[in-house]
């Protein structure tokens, strides 16, 4: 990147972290923050041990447990032996290598992508990685944050760098304001529906425009979180006053003069006027309705007012076959109205929608209503601190009085790795991010929705248009 060239937010984040550019264009990229969890790290620590290597910067690394842990009372420990072994392995590794760690009974424990921003561990201008694809969440702060594999986890632990080639720039601009009842989740589902699950492959997506500026940090994180579902490794939103106000006062954020210095730097990060993007997409916020997925990948999405599409109307043979398979797996018929689809389970939580704002949105719908007969509805805060905050606001009572379960923080039913799972054939309205076959348990059927939509579905006993509730 030559001097004087107009640069995007991504270009600036990238350039400021290049340690060395190798002759073929591969860069040694410096990593400011490394978040570690129990599932994708054991083999990395083992690799270090075998090679006799140390963790280069434990003070830039933080470990949590989230994927495996049960969301019931955890004081008695984890009963499932393999999950317990993974958690114990992490505890042994962080002790051996001196890595800061929030254990399961610490109030700061939670889903890694909730904890990072909440603690001020993730900050604007940083490079942030984690052995988890939804690391894109942290991009909402204006940081370059992306998921890596376990070999790369080991690489970062040993060197505090990664070997990377720059991504391409993509701009998704959303003009206007989201209508009432339409949330950040609906926005990102609409974006994925538009560009497809591979639409962002090889790119970093920057979200901009009036509708994005108007989102609070929770909403921005929801949008960036699902960048990976659009094929992009990272999502970005330029830092602004909303960002600075969010960061200020967080436990690990700079304070006093240091905070002012940091803000002065962060203000230089937004894209230069006229910076070039490799790809641009534009959406009108006013045209977006509450969204719901009908298939087994996140681009298979329609407005809640819509119907299950007909595979026979699809021209491409592979796509047609795939749609048929999706309808078969999901147990849906072409032409069926989405609001006629009955559900068995509701899951509100995950790194996409497990923040306090999400729980408030769900509680607002649940207040004074009842979960429909035969429906199991779970609410799982994204961290211990989110849970405490919700309890301080009385939201747990609102939810439990309405018949929702109020559980301990963790990934829970977002993926079938801990005791919270769908049974084969069960249908779930879920605020998580992936509706892949078997994602929430073998044979389970997932409909991705916003927290308010999930609460509305719990009350109706079928997928429902939240706008009828507000």
């Amino acid at each position, binding site marked *: 990147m030559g001097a004087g060239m107009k640069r995007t937010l991504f270009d600036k984040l990238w350039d400021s972290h290049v340690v060395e550019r190798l002759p073929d264009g591969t860069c040694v990229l410096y990593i400011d923050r490394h978040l570690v969890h129990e599932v994708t790290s054991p*083999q990395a620590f083992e690799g270090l041990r075998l090679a006799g290597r140390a963790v280069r910067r434990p003070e830039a690394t933080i470990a949590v447990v989230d994927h495996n842990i049960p969301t019931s009372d955890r004081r008695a420990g984890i009963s499932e032996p393999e999950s317990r072994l993974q958690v114990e392995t992490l505890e042994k590794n962080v002790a051996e290598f001196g890595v800061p760690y929030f254990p399961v009974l610490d109030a700061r424990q939670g889903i890694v992508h909730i904890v990072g921003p909440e603690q001020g561990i993730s900050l604007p201008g940083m490079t942030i990685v984690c*052995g988890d*694809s939804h690391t894109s969440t942290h991009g909402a702060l204006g940081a370059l944050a992306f998921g890596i594999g376990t*070999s790369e986890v080991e690489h970062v632990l040993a*060197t505090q760098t990664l070997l990377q*080639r720059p991504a391409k720039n993509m701009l998704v601009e959303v003009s206007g304001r989201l209508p009432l009842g339409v949330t950040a989740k609906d926005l990102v589902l609409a974006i994925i529906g538009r560009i497809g699950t591979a639409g962002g*492959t090889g790119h970093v997506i920057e979200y901009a425009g009036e509708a994005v500026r108007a989102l609070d940090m929770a909403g921005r994180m929801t949008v960036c979180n699902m960048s990976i579902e659009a094929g992009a490794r990272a999502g970005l939103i330029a830092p602004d006053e909303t960002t600075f106000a969010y960061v200020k006062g967080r436990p690990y954020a700079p304070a006093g003069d240091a905070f002012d210095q940091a803000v002065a*730097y962060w203000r230089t990060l937004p894209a230069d006027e006229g910076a070039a993007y490799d790809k641009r997409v534009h959406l009108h916020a006013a045209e977006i309705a509450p969204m719901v997925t009908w298939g087994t990948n996140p681009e298979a999405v329609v407005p809640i007012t819509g119907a299950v599409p007909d595979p026979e109307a699809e021209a491409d043979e*592979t796509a047609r076959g795939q749609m048929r398979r999706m309808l078969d797996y999901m147990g849906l018929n072409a032409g069926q109205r989405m609001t006629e689809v009955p559900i068995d389970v509701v899951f509100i939580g995950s790194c996409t929608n497990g923040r306090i704002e999400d729980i408030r949105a769900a509680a607002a719908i649940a207040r004074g209503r009842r979960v429909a007969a035969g429906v199991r509805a779970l609410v799982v805060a994204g961290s211990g601190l989110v849970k405490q905050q919700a309890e301080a606001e009385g939201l747990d009572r609102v939810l439990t009085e309405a018949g929702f379960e109020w559980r301990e923080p963790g990934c829970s039913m977002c993926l079938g790795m801990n005791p919270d799972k769908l049974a084969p054939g069960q249908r779930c309205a879920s605020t998580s991010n992936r509706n892949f076959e*078997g994602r929430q348990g073998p044979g389970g059927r997932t409909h991705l929705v916003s927290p308010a939509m999930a609460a509305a579905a719990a009350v109706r006993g079928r997928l429902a248009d939240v706008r009828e509730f507000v």
Partner: protein
Amino acid sequence: MDAFTTLTAIAAPLPLANVDTDKIIPARFLKTIKRTGLGVHLFDTLRYRADGTENPDFVLNSEPYRRAQILIAFENFGCGSSREHAPWALLDFGIRAVIAPDFADIFYNNCFKNGILPVRLPRAVCEQLMADARMGNNARVTIDLARQVVLRPNGEEIAFEVDPFRKHMLLEGLDEIGQTLQHAARIDGFERERQAAQPWLPSLHA
């Protein structure tokens, strides 16, 4: 990591797009603390029926594809979760190369770290290779990484692109961390400069 030079092997047809890493290896098998042993769970939901027996319709359950070392698939292979368990499961089964029109970024990266070569070829070529792969014992495809060509069973050569750095690492079976540590002095220098320019950058030590 094993080097990858030339491979001549049975290619298995998997004519699906958007094969996600949950499909390659479902989350419930990620509780291991090892890299090996995941091959039996590769494509678990496609490969086994609910009662645990093999699904005879799934390609890797039939001869000669039980011995396949190359997989032919369609668009966006390896999308979804970043789990490196996906390439570990492929490798443990015996797969050393995947050919598809395109791959999800993280999966593509993860392959190179494990001695698996992901080859991007246009959709039309993948369709030809898919047809080749259906030829059972004759579905023998050669991949020559040094020359960057795929040889179809009929002898036709198809050129493919691969990043020179990754190619070099794979051909030599090199340890990437060892390579990066050759730049340790530069990393030290970078850290010092950054700390001086941005003294507000906080440490996570309590």
